[in-house]
């Protein structure tokens, strides 16, 4: 029995792979070509979560904030590299992504500590930081992916606007608006439906672990609202910095990179 009244055996973890076989079967049946990705996702999630479990255990044992910051910095770097894979049409996307995730993480964690919502202790900062960086990464990746598509597909409209003497900021504004919306809309929508057709992970975890439902709800609300802020910061910074890569200093739309 675990500390909160729950214990999951290795056998039970392996049993849950039955659901993964359904996902693979669906992919084969409908020829979505995702079998490889699913296999990689399962293996990576197992290795990464087991590894991070030991790392978190070590950080909790050390009770060192320096190690917490180091872990979050590593998450930011990995998150930025991962998001860059989804933003291939955006030139020099890594820098904006690093800054976006770094600022989103620092601002969010700084704020929740400053407001006294969480104590500055590893057991709070590590899981909250992980959630913030993960959600910020997804938001920034979606936003930049959309930005690349927008500017690529609307190059004619953008250049026609530049030809009127508009700055690159003005010419890119409609694309930036749509990209920012894309990056944040998923979390906004899931926040709207939370509790009705969607139970967020933290709440589910706490309920399974035997926590009081009201406590679980309170913590979940804090996290949802914190995440809303962090994904907005992340998507805003990523798109605001990254769009400049599409233009020269003379407000010219750069030629798209060769495939």
């Amino acid at each position: 029995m675990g500390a909160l009244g729950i214990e999951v055996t290795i056998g039970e973890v392996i049993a849950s792979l039955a659901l993964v076989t359904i996902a693979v079967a669906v992919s084969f049946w409908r020829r979505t070509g995702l079998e490889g990705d699913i296999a990689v996702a399962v293996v990576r999630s197992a290795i990464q979560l087991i590894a991070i479990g030991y790392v978190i255990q070590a950080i909790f044992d050390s009770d060192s904030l320096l190690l917490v910051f180091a872990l979050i910095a590593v998450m930011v770097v990995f998150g930025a590299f991962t998001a860059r894979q989804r933003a291939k049409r955006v030139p020099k996307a890594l820098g904006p992504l690093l800054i976006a995730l770094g600022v989103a993480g620092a601002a969010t964690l700084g704020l929740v500590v400053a407001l006294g919502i969480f104590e500055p202790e590893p057991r709070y900062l590590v899981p909250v930081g992980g959630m913030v960086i993960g959600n910020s990464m997804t938001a920034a990746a979606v936003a930049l992916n959309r930005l690349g598509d927008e500017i690529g597909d609307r190059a004619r409209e953008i250049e026609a606007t530049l030809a009127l003497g508009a700055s690159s900021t003005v010419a890119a504004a409609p694309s930036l608006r749509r990209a920012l919306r894309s990056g944040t809309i998923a979390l906004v929508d899931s926040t709207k439906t939370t509790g009705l057709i969607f139970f967020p992970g933290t709440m589910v975890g706490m309920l399974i672990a035997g926590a009081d439902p009201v406590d679980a709800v309170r913590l979940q609300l804090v996290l949802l609202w914190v995440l809303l802020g962090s994904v907005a910061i992340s998507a805003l910074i990523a798109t605001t910095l990254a769009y400049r890569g599409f233009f020269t200093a003379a407000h010219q739309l750069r030629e798209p990179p060769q495939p």
Partner: protein
Amino acid sequence: MKPCPGRLPNAILRGPRVFASAQVDNRRMLFELDQIDLSRGGEPVLRGLSARIPEGASCIAGPSGSGKSTLLRLLDRLVDPEAGTVRYRGEDVRDRDPQALRREVCLVPQLPALLEGTVADNIHFAAELAGREPDVGRLLELAGLGPSFAERDAARLSVGEQQRAMLARALALEPRVLLLDEPTSALDPETKAAVEGTLLELRRRLGISLVLVTHDLDQARRMSKWLLRIENGRAVVAGPTSELLAAVG
């Protein structure tokens, strides 16, 4: 040699010929291009192109893919050459503020690309960029559109109407030069004649210089005093349109 409607015979056009070169020097030069090299996607588009375009109405002609549209973008500094210089009224375009240059020398692209909203929204957008208060009705009239077009959704106009709306939007900047990339390519003969009439009227009423890309030499004859022909990214012939086309027959 029999004249070939709409095309200059290659025998006439090949070779770096400049017709009536003495007359060129007497004209005020709008643009001077010197040894321009420019590539797109790793492929050379303009190669050592040198040409002069005087004030007034000029046409740039040439086969598809010869670099005509790229040349217009170069004149508007929407792209910079890898080598060579582009001068506008004697000044290197790189020494000018690119946004101010584009408001003075406004490019109207071949395919309409209006912003979301009404025609009036588009005109106001351009006018605000130039810090002007637009007279929407007059601009529409100059572009050959009635006042009822002001509140029409730009996305719901026909291609011909969109091209005129693009023209009205460009005129909101009060430019000194209009660069027009095949402005009648998608139009039926009646609309084409109307747009040509509009452009000639603009030239007459506002004194705007026109640089027009076209495939159609009959249009060049009607619309321009100066003709520049490019092939494979090089200027192959230039001169007064009447003199040059008279040589064709």
